[in-house]
């Protein structure tokens, strides 16, 4: 699929993060993988930016557009419907709660939050991927976090009680 060493490196580096981001965005892992493949096909066909952060931002910009197109196209069909394979465990319940909370955010706030938390992009990369300023990224990210604090209050209390681990980076 990747046609140049550049594209191959980018694929190896970004593919898991693109899938994570798209899984969160569209709510279905299989759809996310298909969209990720499409993302890298698009990226391989187009001239990549020079800098590595620019390339990452470019890939996520494509992924975001494809994800949003998918959500728009499937808006009539069970949007954000649970994809939990009929399970009822605590982890799946949390997954559902998170998904419902994310669905209540403003679309751009949600995208920026996911690009940070699911894809691990820096503020500058998110700004480029979403075509907004870094200040806008900061304020929208904070707004999304504040909203999720309220929406997921019980879940976060449980998580805090278990103990939290500090992680400055979120891209592994």
């Amino acid at each position, binding site marked *: 699929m990747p046609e140049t060493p550049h594209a191959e490196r980018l694929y190896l580096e970004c593919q898991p993060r693109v899938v*994570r981001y798209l*899984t*969160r965005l569209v*709510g*279905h*892992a*299989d759809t996310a*993988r298909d969209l990720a493949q499409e993302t890298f096909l698009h990226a391989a066909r187009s001239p990549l930016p020079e800098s590595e952060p620019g390339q990452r931002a470019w890939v996520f910009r494509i992924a975001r557009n494809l994800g949003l197109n998918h959500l728009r196209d499937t808006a009539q069909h069970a949007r954000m419907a649970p*994809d*939990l*394979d009929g*399970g009822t465990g605590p*982890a*799946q319940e*949390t*997954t559902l*709660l*998170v*998904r419902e909370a994310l669905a209540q955010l403003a679309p751009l706030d949600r995208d920026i939050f996911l690009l*940070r*938390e*699911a894809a691990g992009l*820096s*503020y500058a990369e998110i700004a480029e991927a979403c075509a907004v300023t870094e200040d806008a990224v*900061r304020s929208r*990210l*904070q707004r999304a*976090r*504040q909203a*999720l*604090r309220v929406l*997921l209050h019980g*879940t*976060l209390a449980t*998580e*805090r009680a278990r103990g*939290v*681990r*500090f*992680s*400055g*980076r*979120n891209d592994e």
Partner: protein
Amino acid sequence: MTIENTIDAFVDGAIVDTTALDAALASSDGRAYLFDVLALRQTMQTSMPAAAVRVTRIRRPFLRYASAAVVALALVGAGYAAGLRQAPAAEVTAANTSDGARPPEPTRVIELTPGVNWHESRGGD
């Protein structure tokens, strides 16, 4: 810059003014926000819809068959290519033997003369 901005920058790996961070962490609101942001990050990491992976495999057996077909085709292709590589070598060997190549000259010749040093005998003798 608000307490939340400072905490956000800290947990997101951006450069933070240490005085502002000190003030943010000194307030209970700041610490509560930090713990919530970390808990939220942890929740996001642990609640990825992994069940969908299994659903995918059930829903799309075609992909497995297609993968198996691709592997089988690759093996057949590799075998064919290996055969092509070996076939010319066999032709060269055959051409050498029929193209005037001679066995080496004998180093010793033994002549047998009937009745002298060659006696017919029946089987079993």
